[in-house]
Protein backbone atom coordinates (compact mmCIF):
# COMPACT_ATOMS: atom_id res chain seq x y z
CA UNK A 1 0.00 0.00 0.00
CA UNK A 2 1.35 3.47 -0.84
CA UNK A 3 2.79 5.52 1.99
CA UNK A 4 0.02 8.09 1.41
CA UNK A 5 -2.90 5.80 2.16
CA UNK A 6 -3.57 4.64 5.70
CA UNK A 7 -4.60 1.13 6.77
CA UNK A 8 -7.01 0.89 9.72
CA UNK A 9 -5.48 0.77 13.20
CA UNK A 10 -5.75 -2.40 15.30
CA UNK A 11 -8.92 -2.21 17.40
CA UNK A 12 -7.20 -2.27 20.81
CA UNK A 13 -4.30 -0.58 22.52
CA UNK A 14 -1.08 -2.52 22.04
CA UNK A 15 1.67 -3.11 24.59
CA UNK A 16 4.97 -2.06 23.01
CA UNK A 17 8.49 -2.27 24.40
CA UNK A 18 10.73 0.76 24.71
CA UNK A 19 14.03 0.34 22.85
CA UNK A 20 15.55 3.55 24.09
CA UNK A 21 15.15 7.25 24.66
CA UNK A 22 17.64 9.78 23.32
CA UNK A 23 18.19 13.39 24.26
CA UNK A 24 17.77 15.90 21.44
CA UNK A 25 18.41 19.28 23.02
CA UNK A 26 15.28 20.20 24.98
CA UNK A 27 13.44 17.21 23.51
CA UNK A 28 13.58 13.42 23.81
CA UNK A 29 13.28 10.89 21.02
CA UNK A 30 11.45 7.79 22.23
CA UNK A 31 12.06 4.62 20.23
CA UNK A 32 9.71 1.65 20.63
CA UNK A 33 9.62 -1.80 19.02
CA UNK A 34 6.55 -1.76 16.79
CA UNK A 35 6.50 -4.54 14.27
CA UNK A 36 2.88 -5.42 13.56
CA UNK A 37 1.66 -1.84 13.27
CA UNK A 38 0.27 -0.86 9.86
CA UNK A 39 2.58 1.64 8.17
CA UNK A 40 1.40 5.09 9.29
CA UNK A 41 0.71 7.83 6.83
CA UNK A 42 2.84 10.94 7.49
CA UNK A 43 0.90 13.18 9.90
CA UNK A 44 -0.89 10.37 11.70
CA UNK A 45 -0.56 10.02 15.47
CA UNK A 46 -0.88 7.48 18.27
CA UNK A 47 -2.45 7.63 21.73
CA UNK A 48 0.26 6.69 24.20
CA UNK A 49 0.57 5.86 27.90
CA UNK A 50 3.22 4.26 30.09
CA UNK A 51 2.18 0.69 30.93
CA UNK A 52 3.26 1.12 34.55
CA UNK A 53 2.58 4.03 36.95
CA UNK A 54 0.55 6.12 34.55
CA UNK A 55 -0.68 8.42 37.31
CA UNK A 56 0.66 9.61 40.63
CA UNK A 57 2.35 12.64 39.06
CA UNK A 58 1.45 16.31 39.47
CA UNK A 59 -2.18 16.57 40.66
CA UNK A 60 -2.42 12.74 40.71
CA UNK A 61 -2.20 12.74 36.92
CA UNK A 62 -1.85 11.57 34.13
CA UNK A 63 -4.94 9.40 33.73
CA UNK A 64 -5.79 9.47 30.03
CA UNK A 65 -3.37 8.51 27.25
CA UNK A 66 -1.65 11.34 25.35
CA UNK A 67 -1.52 12.02 21.62
CA UNK A 68 1.82 12.04 19.80
CA UNK A 69 2.68 12.34 16.15
CA UNK A 70 4.51 9.37 14.74
CA UNK A 71 7.77 11.20 14.07
CA UNK A 72 9.55 8.44 12.19
CA UNK A 73 9.36 4.80 11.20
CA UNK A 74 12.35 2.51 10.95
CA UNK A 75 12.13 -1.23 10.26
CA UNK A 76 10.15 -2.56 13.24
CA UNK A 77 10.47 0.73 15.15
CA UNK A 78 8.34 3.80 15.75
CA UNK A 79 9.88 7.04 17.00
CA UNK A 80 8.19 9.83 18.93
CA UNK A 81 9.49 13.30 19.75
CA UNK A 82 8.64 14.34 23.29
CA UNK A 83 8.62 17.71 25.00
CA UNK A 84 8.08 17.67 28.77
CA UNK A 85 5.22 20.09 29.36
CA UNK A 86 3.28 18.31 32.11
CA UNK A 87 2.70 15.06 34.01
CA UNK A 88 2.00 12.88 30.97
CA UNK A 89 4.97 13.92 28.89
CA UNK A 90 7.11 13.88 32.04
CA UNK A 91 6.23 10.27 32.73
CA UNK A 92 6.91 9.29 29.11
CA UNK A 93 10.30 11.03 29.27
CA UNK A 94 11.09 8.73 32.23
CA UNK A 95 10.59 5.58 30.12
CA UNK A 96 13.69 3.47 29.73
CA UNK A 97 14.77 0.54 27.56
CA UNK A 98 12.61 -2.50 28.30
CA UNK A 99 9.72 -0.55 29.81
CA UNK A 100 6.23 -1.19 28.51
CA UNK A 101 4.17 1.41 26.67
CA UNK A 102 0.54 1.33 25.52
CA UNK A 103 -0.12 2.60 22.04
CA UNK A 104 -3.29 2.94 20.00
CA UNK A 105 -2.93 3.81 16.36
CA UNK A 106 -1.97 4.92 13.79
CA UNK A 107 -4.88 7.35 14.00
CA UNK A 108 -6.30 10.30 12.08
CA UNK A 109 -5.85 11.80 8.63
CA UNK A 110 -2.29 12.34 7.48
CA UNK A 111 -0.79 14.66 4.91
CA UNK A 112 -1.83 14.45 1.25
CA UNK A 113 1.04 14.15 -1.24
CA UNK A 114 2.01 17.28 -3.19
CA UNK A 115 0.85 17.54 -6.78
CA UNK A 116 3.34 16.46 -9.44
CA UNK A 117 6.21 18.86 -10.02
CA UNK A 118 5.27 20.94 -7.00
CA UNK A 119 7.64 22.00 -4.26
CA UNK A 120 6.93 21.00 -0.67
CA UNK A 121 7.78 23.59 1.98
CA UNK A 122 7.77 22.02 5.43
CA UNK A 123 7.18 24.59 8.16
CA UNK A 124 7.56 23.40 11.75
CA UNK A 125 7.53 25.19 15.09
CA UNK A 126 8.86 23.67 18.33
CA UNK A 127 7.81 20.11 19.03
CA UNK A 128 5.49 20.52 16.02
CA UNK A 129 8.40 19.48 13.82
CA UNK A 130 7.69 15.82 14.70
CA UNK A 131 5.26 14.91 11.88
CA UNK A 132 7.45 16.75 9.35
CA UNK A 133 10.30 14.29 9.90
CA UNK A 134 8.32 11.28 8.68
CA UNK A 135 6.88 13.52 5.95
CA UNK A 136 10.39 14.41 4.77
CA UNK A 137 11.26 10.69 4.69
CA UNK A 138 8.18 9.99 2.55
CA UNK A 139 8.79 12.87 0.14
CA UNK A 140 12.39 11.89 -0.38
CA UNK A 141 11.35 8.32 -1.11
CA UNK A 142 9.72 9.93 -4.16
CA UNK A 143 12.63 11.92 -5.53
CA UNK A 144 9.96 13.63 -7.67
CA UNK A 145 9.25 16.57 -5.37
CA UNK A 146 11.84 18.98 -4.07
CA UNK A 147 11.59 19.76 -0.40
CA UNK A 148 12.39 22.87 1.62
CA UNK A 149 12.44 22.70 5.42
CA UNK A 150 11.90 25.74 7.65
CA UNK A 151 11.96 25.22 11.41
CA UNK A 152 11.40 27.72 14.22
CA UNK A 153 12.25 27.37 17.91
CA UNK A 154 12.08 29.42 21.07
CA UNK A 155 15.74 28.97 22.02
CA UNK A 156 18.98 27.17 21.33
CA UNK A 157 18.20 24.07 23.40
CA UNK A 158 15.02 23.55 21.40
CA UNK A 159 16.71 24.41 18.12
CA UNK A 160 18.77 21.23 18.52
CA UNK A 161 15.52 19.47 17.61
CA UNK A 162 16.18 20.59 14.03
CA UNK A 163 18.54 17.62 13.73
CA UNK A 164 15.43 15.41 13.48
CA UNK A 165 15.14 16.60 9.88
CA UNK A 166 17.94 17.53 7.51
CA UNK A 167 18.79 20.51 5.41
CA UNK A 168 16.61 22.74 7.57
CA UNK A 169 16.76 26.53 7.70
CA UNK A 170 16.29 27.48 11.35
CA UNK A 171 14.87 30.56 13.04
CA UNK A 172 14.93 31.20 16.80
CA UNK A 173 13.03 33.74 18.87
CA UNK A 174 16.17 34.56 20.87
CA UNK A 175 18.52 34.52 17.87
CA UNK A 176 20.75 31.90 19.46
CA UNK A 177 20.64 29.80 16.28
CA UNK A 178 19.97 30.75 12.64
CA UNK A 179 17.64 33.57 11.68
CA UNK A 180 16.79 35.85 14.65
CA UNK A 181 13.06 36.23 14.30
CA UNK A 182 9.90 34.61 13.05
CA UNK A 183 9.61 31.47 10.98
CA UNK A 184 7.09 33.27 8.78
CA UNK A 185 9.81 35.70 7.72
CA UNK A 186 11.71 32.73 6.27
CA UNK A 187 8.51 31.41 4.73
CA UNK A 188 7.64 34.67 3.00
CA UNK A 189 11.08 34.69 1.33
CA UNK A 190 10.48 31.13 0.07
CA UNK A 191 7.01 31.90 -1.22
CA UNK A 192 8.21 34.98 -3.08
CA UNK A 193 7.24 34.45 -6.72
CA UNK A 194 7.02 30.68 -6.41
CA UNK A 195 3.83 29.37 -8.01
CA UNK A 196 4.82 25.72 -7.36
CA UNK A 197 4.93 25.92 -3.57
CA UNK A 198 2.77 23.76 -1.31
CA UNK A 199 3.05 24.28 2.45
CA UNK A 200 2.97 21.59 5.15
CA UNK A 201 2.87 23.14 8.62
CA UNK A 202 2.75 22.02 12.23
CA UNK A 203 3.42 24.04 15.35
CA UNK A 204 1.94 26.43 17.92
CA UNK A 205 -1.43 27.98 17.09
CA UNK A 206 -0.13 31.53 16.49
CA UNK A 207 2.47 30.17 14.04
CA UNK A 208 -0.10 28.02 12.24
CA UNK A 209 -2.44 30.98 11.97
CA UNK A 210 0.33 33.19 10.56
CA UNK A 211 1.21 30.48 8.01
CA UNK A 212 -2.45 30.00 7.11
CA UNK A 213 -2.98 33.73 6.60
CA UNK A 214 0.18 34.15 4.52
CA UNK A 215 -0.64 31.19 2.29
CA UNK A 216 -4.23 32.34 1.93
CA UNK A 217 -3.27 35.82 0.70
CA UNK A 218 -0.82 34.30 -1.79
CA UNK A 219 -3.10 31.45 -2.89
CA UNK A 220 -0.55 28.86 -1.80
CA UNK A 221 -2.15 25.50 -0.88
CA UNK A 222 -1.39 24.65 2.75
CA UNK A 223 -1.95 21.60 4.91
CA UNK A 224 -1.95 22.25 8.65
CA UNK A 225 -1.37 19.56 11.29
CA UNK A 226 -3.55 20.71 14.18
CA UNK A 227 -3.50 19.70 17.84
CA UNK A 228 -6.13 19.72 20.58
CA UNK A 229 -6.63 18.23 23.99
CA UNK A 230 -7.77 14.65 23.36
CA UNK A 231 -9.30 11.96 25.50
CA UNK A 232 -9.70 9.14 22.97
CA UNK A 233 -8.11 9.86 19.60
CA UNK A 234 -10.68 7.91 17.57
CA UNK A 235 -13.79 10.06 17.48
CA UNK A 236 -15.49 8.75 20.60
CA UNK A 237 -15.40 11.69 23.02
CA UNK A 238 -15.94 14.74 20.78
CA UNK A 239 -13.44 16.52 23.00
CA UNK A 240 -10.97 17.65 20.35
CA UNK A 241 -13.25 20.17 18.65
CA UNK A 242 -11.78 22.99 16.56
CA UNK A 243 -14.01 25.63 14.90
CA UNK A 244 -14.27 25.09 11.16
CA UNK A 245 -15.06 27.49 8.32
CA UNK A 246 -18.75 28.31 8.08
CA UNK A 247 -19.57 27.36 11.67
CA UNK A 248 -19.56 24.18 13.67
CA UNK A 249 -16.53 22.16 14.70
CA UNK A 250 -14.32 19.45 13.34
CA UNK A 251 -12.81 16.66 15.45
CA UNK A 252 -9.04 16.94 15.18
CA UNK A 253 -8.62 13.20 15.78
CA UNK A 254 -10.79 11.97 12.91
CA UNK A 255 -11.25 15.01 10.62
CA UNK A 256 -7.56 15.81 11.18
CA UNK A 257 -5.02 16.22 12.62
CA UNK A 258 -4.00 17.33 9.13
CA UNK A 259 -6.53 19.67 7.56
CA UNK A 260 -6.51 21.72 4.41
CA UNK A 261 -6.06 25.35 5.45
CA UNK A 262 -9.19 26.14 3.44
CA UNK A 263 -11.29 24.20 6.01
CA UNK A 264 -10.64 26.90 8.63
CA UNK A 265 -11.49 30.58 8.94
CA UNK A 266 -8.58 30.84 11.32
CA UNK A 267 -6.48 28.59 13.55
CA UNK A 268 -7.99 28.99 17.01
CA UNK A 269 -6.06 29.49 20.24
CA UNK A 270 -6.22 25.85 21.40
CA UNK A 271 -5.57 24.16 18.02
CA UNK A 272 -1.77 24.18 18.07
CA UNK A 273 1.21 22.41 19.61
CA UNK A 274 2.52 23.27 23.10
CA UNK A 275 4.78 26.33 22.87
Amino acid at each position, binding site marked *: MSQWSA*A*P*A*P*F*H*RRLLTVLGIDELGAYRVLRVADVETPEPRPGQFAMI*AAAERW*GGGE*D*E*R*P*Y*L*PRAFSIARRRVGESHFLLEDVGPGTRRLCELREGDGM*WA*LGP*LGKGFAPPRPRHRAILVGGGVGIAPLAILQDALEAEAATDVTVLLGFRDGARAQGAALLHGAQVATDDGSVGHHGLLTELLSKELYEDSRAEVYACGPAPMLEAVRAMCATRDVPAQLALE*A*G*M*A*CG*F*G*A*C*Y*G*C*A*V*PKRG*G*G*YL*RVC*VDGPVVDAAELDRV*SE*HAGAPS
Partner: protein
Amino acid sequence: MSSDETILTDAGDAVEFCGLSLAHPVINGSGTFDAIAARRAFGPALERDFPFAAFVSKTITLSPRAGNPPPRLWETPGGLINSIGLPNKGLHAYIAEDLPRLAELGVPLITNVMGSSAEEFSALVSACDERSEIAAIELNVSCPNVETGLDIGADPKQLKQVVGAARASTRKPLIVKLTPNTANVPACAAAAQEGGADAVSLINTLRAMALSPGGERGRRPWLGGSTGGLSGPALRAVALAQVVGVAARVSIPIVGMGGVQRASHARDLLDAGATLVAVGTESFRDPAAAARVAAGLRAGRRSEAVFPTA
Protein backbone atom coordinates in the same frame (compact mmCIF):
# COMPACT_ATOMS: atom_id res chain seq x y z
CA MET B 1 -29.95 -9.81 43.80
CA SER B 2 -30.43 -9.66 40.05
CA SER B 3 -26.73 -10.47 39.78
CA ASP B 4 -27.51 -13.94 41.03
CA GLU B 5 -29.82 -14.55 38.10
CA THR B 6 -27.04 -13.25 35.91
CA ILE B 7 -24.66 -15.69 37.51
CA LEU B 8 -26.97 -18.66 37.29
CA THR B 9 -28.17 -17.95 33.76
CA ASP B 10 -27.91 -21.11 31.68
CA ALA B 11 -26.69 -19.61 28.43
CA GLY B 12 -23.30 -18.72 29.93
CA ASP B 13 -22.96 -14.96 29.50
CA ALA B 14 -26.31 -14.22 27.89
CA VAL B 15 -28.50 -11.74 29.77
CA GLU B 16 -32.16 -10.92 29.39
CA PHE B 17 -32.80 -7.19 29.62
CA CYS B 18 -36.24 -5.65 29.04
CA GLY B 19 -37.08 -8.46 26.66
CA LEU B 20 -33.84 -8.09 24.72
CA SER B 21 -31.44 -10.98 24.94
CA LEU B 22 -27.88 -9.74 25.09
CA ALA B 23 -24.75 -11.80 24.57
CA HIS B 24 -23.22 -10.49 27.81
CA PRO B 25 -23.99 -7.77 30.39
CA VAL B 26 -21.59 -5.04 29.14
CA ILE B 27 -22.76 -2.11 27.00
CA ASN B 28 -21.42 1.42 26.37
CA GLY B 29 -22.31 4.62 28.16
CA SER B 30 -24.11 7.06 25.88
CA GLY B 31 -21.76 9.53 24.24
CA THR B 32 -18.62 7.60 24.97
CA PHE B 33 -18.33 5.60 21.76
CA ASP B 34 -19.01 6.70 18.17
CA ALA B 35 -19.33 3.47 16.21
CA ILE B 36 -19.34 5.27 12.86
CA ALA B 37 -16.11 7.16 13.55
CA ALA B 38 -14.62 3.99 15.07
CA ARG B 39 -15.45 2.07 11.88
CA ARG B 40 -13.31 4.55 9.94
CA ALA B 41 -10.43 4.31 12.41
CA PHE B 42 -10.44 0.54 12.98
CA GLY B 43 -12.04 -0.91 9.85
CA PRO B 44 -13.93 -4.23 9.79
CA ALA B 45 -12.35 -5.28 13.11
CA LEU B 46 -14.92 -2.99 14.74
CA GLU B 47 -17.82 -5.27 13.83
CA ARG B 48 -15.77 -8.46 14.19
CA ASP B 49 -14.67 -7.62 17.75
CA PHE B 50 -17.49 -5.29 18.73
CA PRO B 51 -17.11 -5.04 22.53
CA PHE B 52 -20.63 -4.03 23.54
CA ALA B 53 -23.64 -6.38 23.84
CA ALA B 54 -25.85 -3.47 22.80
CA PHE B 55 -24.93 -0.10 21.35
CA VAL B 56 -26.18 3.10 22.98
CA SER B 57 -26.15 6.19 20.75
CA LYS B 58 -24.93 9.55 21.98
CA THR B 59 -27.77 11.84 23.01
CA ILE B 60 -29.95 12.86 20.06
CA THR B 61 -32.01 16.07 20.13
CA LEU B 62 -34.81 17.28 17.83
CA SER B 63 -32.67 19.91 16.12
CA PRO B 64 -28.98 19.64 15.30
CA ARG B 65 -26.49 20.96 17.90
CA ALA B 66 -22.90 22.06 17.25
CA GLY B 67 -21.84 21.51 20.84
CA ASN B 68 -19.80 23.74 23.16
CA PRO B 69 -16.77 25.82 22.17
CA PRO B 70 -13.37 24.32 23.08
CA PRO B 71 -11.70 23.47 25.34
CA ARG B 72 -14.11 20.64 26.09
CA LEU B 73 -11.93 18.42 28.29
CA TRP B 74 -10.12 18.69 31.60
CA GLU B 75 -8.31 15.81 33.26
CA THR B 76 -8.69 15.41 37.03
CA PRO B 77 -7.20 12.88 39.48
CA GLY B 78 -8.58 9.60 38.12
CA GLY B 79 -11.25 11.42 36.18
CA LEU B 80 -12.27 13.51 33.21
CA ILE B 81 -14.47 16.60 33.06
CA ASN B 82 -16.21 17.03 29.74
CA SER B 83 -18.25 19.89 28.45
CA ILE B 84 -19.03 18.53 25.03
CA GLY B 85 -22.48 20.08 24.84
CA LEU B 86 -24.29 17.17 23.18
CA PRO B 87 -23.28 17.87 19.58
CA ASN B 88 -25.47 15.82 17.25
CA LYS B 89 -26.97 16.08 13.79
CA GLY B 90 -30.52 16.12 15.08
CA LEU B 91 -33.21 13.47 15.06
CA HIS B 92 -33.96 13.41 11.36
CA ALA B 93 -30.39 13.23 10.06
CA TYR B 94 -29.65 10.63 12.76
CA ILE B 95 -32.50 8.46 11.53
CA ALA B 96 -31.74 9.03 7.86
CA GLU B 97 -27.93 8.79 7.88
CA ASP B 98 -26.75 7.02 11.04
CA LEU B 99 -29.37 4.38 11.85
CA PRO B 100 -28.83 2.32 8.70
CA ARG B 101 -25.09 2.17 9.39
CA LEU B 102 -25.54 1.42 13.09
CA ALA B 103 -27.88 -1.41 12.19
CA GLU B 104 -24.88 -3.14 10.58
CA LEU B 105 -23.23 -3.50 13.99
CA GLY B 106 -25.33 -6.60 14.60
CA VAL B 107 -26.19 -5.76 18.21
CA PRO B 108 -29.41 -4.24 19.56
CA LEU B 109 -29.45 -0.45 19.25
CA ILE B 110 -30.48 1.78 22.13
CA THR B 111 -31.14 5.37 21.07
CA ASN B 112 -30.54 8.00 23.74
CA VAL B 113 -32.68 11.13 23.36
CA MET B 114 -33.04 14.41 25.22
CA GLY B 115 -35.80 17.00 25.07
CA SER B 116 -36.36 20.19 27.01
CA SER B 117 -40.03 19.37 27.70
CA ALA B 118 -42.46 16.47 27.88
CA GLU B 119 -43.66 17.40 24.40
CA GLU B 120 -40.14 17.27 22.94
CA PHE B 121 -39.48 13.95 24.65
CA SER B 122 -42.63 12.39 23.23
CA ALA B 123 -41.85 13.72 19.75
CA LEU B 124 -38.38 12.15 19.92
CA VAL B 125 -39.71 8.89 21.32
CA SER B 126 -42.51 8.55 18.77
CA ALA B 127 -40.04 9.02 15.94
CA CYS B 128 -37.81 6.29 17.42
CA ASP B 129 -40.83 4.06 17.99
CA GLU B 130 -41.37 3.89 14.22
CA ARG B 131 -37.88 2.59 13.48
CA SER B 132 -37.41 -1.15 13.55
CA GLU B 133 -33.63 -0.68 13.86
CA ILE B 134 -34.12 0.73 17.34
CA ALA B 135 -34.47 -1.93 20.04
CA ALA B 136 -34.85 0.38 23.04
CA ILE B 137 -34.93 4.07 23.92
CA GLU B 138 -32.96 5.79 26.69
CA LEU B 139 -34.12 9.16 28.02
CA ASN B 140 -31.39 11.59 29.04
CA VAL B 141 -33.20 13.66 31.67
CA SER B 142 -30.15 15.69 32.69
CA CYS B 143 -31.46 18.56 30.62
CA PRO B 144 -31.81 21.80 32.59
CA ASN B 145 -35.37 22.97 33.16
CA VAL B 146 -35.70 26.40 31.53
CA GLU B 147 -37.27 28.04 34.62
CA THR B 148 -35.42 26.41 37.54
CA GLY B 149 -32.14 25.70 35.75
CA LEU B 150 -32.15 22.32 37.50
CA ASP B 151 -32.02 19.04 35.65
CA ILE B 152 -35.50 17.86 34.72
CA GLY B 153 -34.48 14.53 36.17
CA ALA B 154 -33.57 16.04 39.53
CA ASP B 155 -37.22 16.50 40.52
CA PRO B 156 -39.28 13.29 40.92
CA LYS B 157 -42.61 14.98 40.01
CA GLN B 158 -41.27 16.54 36.82
CA LEU B 159 -39.45 13.33 35.96
CA LYS B 160 -42.55 11.16 36.35
CA GLN B 161 -44.45 13.46 34.01
CA VAL B 162 -41.74 13.43 31.33
CA VAL B 163 -41.38 9.67 31.51
CA GLY B 164 -45.15 9.27 31.33
CA ALA B 165 -45.25 11.33 28.13
CA ALA B 166 -42.49 9.21 26.62
CA ARG B 167 -44.16 6.00 27.77
CA ALA B 168 -47.37 7.00 25.98
CA SER B 169 -45.40 7.36 22.75
CA THR B 170 -43.81 3.93 22.47
CA ARG B 171 -44.09 0.27 23.30
CA LYS B 172 -40.34 -0.20 22.98
CA PRO B 173 -38.35 -0.71 26.18
CA LEU B 174 -37.80 2.66 27.85
CA ILE B 175 -34.66 3.29 29.94
CA VAL B 176 -34.38 6.43 32.04
CA LYS B 177 -30.85 7.74 32.52
CA LEU B 178 -31.00 9.30 35.97
CA THR B 179 -29.05 12.36 37.02
CA PRO B 180 -26.69 11.87 39.98
CA ASN B 181 -26.79 15.59 40.84
CA THR B 182 -29.73 15.42 43.23
CA ALA B 183 -30.51 14.65 46.85
CA ASN B 184 -32.67 11.57 46.45
CA VAL B 185 -31.73 9.44 43.46
CA PRO B 186 -33.79 6.44 44.62
CA ALA B 187 -36.91 8.66 44.73
CA CYS B 188 -36.18 9.74 41.14
CA ALA B 189 -35.76 6.09 40.12
CA ALA B 190 -39.11 5.30 41.74
CA ALA B 191 -40.70 8.20 39.89
CA ALA B 192 -39.29 6.89 36.62
CA GLN B 193 -40.74 3.46 37.37
CA GLU B 194 -44.13 4.97 38.22
CA GLY B 195 -43.95 6.97 35.00
CA GLY B 196 -43.65 3.69 33.12
CA ALA B 197 -39.91 3.18 32.65
CA ASP B 198 -38.79 -0.37 31.94
CA ALA B 199 -35.32 0.27 33.36
CA VAL B 200 -33.11 2.99 34.80
CA SER B 201 -29.46 3.69 34.04
CA LEU B 202 -26.99 5.50 36.32
CA ILE B 203 -24.83 7.35 36.94
CA ASN B 204 -24.47 10.26 34.57
CA THR B 205 -21.61 12.69 35.17
CA LEU B 206 -21.24 14.82 38.32
CA ARG B 207 -21.36 18.57 37.83
CA ALA B 208 -17.78 19.85 38.02
CA MET B 209 -15.55 22.70 36.92
CA ALA B 210 -11.94 23.71 36.35
CA LEU B 211 -10.24 27.09 36.15
CA SER B 212 -7.75 27.96 33.45
CA PRO B 213 -4.18 27.30 34.58
CA GLY B 214 -1.61 30.09 34.24
CA GLY B 215 -2.72 33.06 32.21
CA GLU B 216 -4.91 35.08 34.52
CA ARG B 217 -3.89 32.74 37.33
CA GLY B 218 -6.88 30.51 36.94
CA ARG B 219 -9.60 33.13 37.15
CA ARG B 220 -11.26 32.06 33.89
CA PRO B 221 -13.25 28.81 33.58
CA TRP B 222 -11.15 26.41 31.50
CA LEU B 223 -14.03 24.73 29.73
CA GLY B 224 -15.72 26.50 26.86
CA GLY B 225 -19.03 25.46 28.39
CA SER B 226 -17.90 26.84 31.78
CA THR B 227 -19.09 23.85 33.82
CA GLY B 228 -18.87 20.22 32.77
CA GLY B 229 -19.47 16.66 33.95
CA LEU B 230 -17.01 14.48 35.85
CA SER B 231 -16.63 10.84 34.83
CA GLY B 232 -14.19 8.02 35.38
CA PRO B 233 -12.70 6.11 38.34
CA ALA B 234 -12.89 9.20 40.57
CA LEU B 235 -16.66 8.76 40.87
CA ARG B 236 -16.86 4.96 40.90
CA ALA B 237 -17.65 4.81 44.62
CA VAL B 238 -20.39 7.44 44.21
CA ALA B 239 -21.93 5.38 41.40
CA LEU B 240 -21.87 2.23 43.50
CA ALA B 241 -23.65 3.98 46.39
CA GLN B 242 -26.34 5.29 44.06
CA VAL B 243 -26.87 1.91 42.38
CA VAL B 244 -27.24 0.24 45.78
CA GLY B 245 -29.77 2.88 46.82
CA VAL B 246 -31.77 2.58 43.61
CA ALA B 247 -31.73 -1.24 43.67
CA ALA B 248 -33.24 -1.15 47.14
CA ARG B 249 -36.05 1.10 45.89
CA VAL B 250 -37.16 -0.12 42.43
CA SER B 251 -38.03 -3.48 40.89
CA ILE B 252 -37.11 -2.63 37.28
CA PRO B 253 -33.65 -3.58 35.97
CA ILE B 254 -30.69 -1.24 36.40
CA VAL B 255 -27.86 -0.35 34.04
CA GLY B 256 -24.97 0.54 36.34
CA MET B 257 -22.07 2.70 35.22
CA GLY B 258 -19.44 5.05 36.56
CA GLY B 259 -15.70 4.49 36.49
CA VAL B 260 -15.77 0.86 35.37
CA GLN B 261 -12.24 -0.05 34.28
CA ARG B 262 -12.01 -3.77 35.03
CA ALA B 263 -14.25 -6.79 35.55
CA SER B 264 -14.11 -6.41 39.33
CA HIS B 265 -15.68 -2.95 39.07
CA ALA B 266 -18.44 -4.35 36.87
CA ARG B 267 -18.83 -7.26 39.28
CA ASP B 268 -19.38 -4.77 42.12
CA LEU B 269 -22.16 -3.00 40.21
CA LEU B 270 -23.83 -6.30 39.28
CA ASP B 271 -23.57 -7.52 42.86
CA ALA B 272 -25.03 -4.19 43.97
CA GLY B 273 -28.14 -4.93 41.94
CA ALA B 274 -27.43 -3.90 38.34
CA THR B 275 -28.46 -6.20 35.48
CA LEU B 276 -26.14 -4.56 32.95
CA VAL B 277 -23.04 -2.43 33.30
CA ALA B 278 -21.88 0.27 30.92
CA VAL B 279 -18.30 1.23 30.18
CA GLY B 280 -17.73 4.88 29.32
CA THR B 281 -14.54 6.82 29.89
CA GLU B 282 -12.42 3.67 30.05
CA SER B 283 -13.17 3.10 26.36
CA PHE B 284 -11.20 6.29 25.68
CA ARG B 285 -8.13 4.67 27.21
CA ASP B 286 -8.69 1.48 25.24
CA PRO B 287 -11.48 1.03 22.70
CA ALA B 288 -11.50 -2.69 23.57
CA ALA B 289 -11.84 -2.07 27.32
CA ALA B 290 -15.44 -3.33 27.41
CA ALA B 291 -14.36 -6.60 25.82
CA ARG B 292 -11.81 -7.05 28.61
CA VAL B 293 -14.49 -6.36 31.19
CA ALA B 294 -16.92 -8.85 29.64
CA ALA B 295 -14.20 -11.53 29.40
CA GLY B 296 -13.20 -10.92 33.01
CA LEU B 297 -16.80 -11.26 34.20
CA ARG B 298 -17.08 -14.53 32.30
CA ALA B 299 -13.91 -15.89 33.94
CA GLY B 300 -14.99 -14.61 37.33
CA ARG B 301 -18.39 -16.23 36.96
CA ARG B 302 -16.82 -19.57 36.11
CA SER B 303 -14.45 -19.56 39.06
CA GLU B 304 -17.38 -18.52 41.21
CA ALA B 305 -19.31 -21.59 40.16
CA VAL B 306 -16.34 -23.73 41.15
CA PHE B 307 -15.48 -22.07 44.47
CA PRO B 308 -18.63 -20.44 45.81
CA THR B 309 -16.69 -18.23 48.24
CA ALA B 310 -13.67 -17.54 46.02
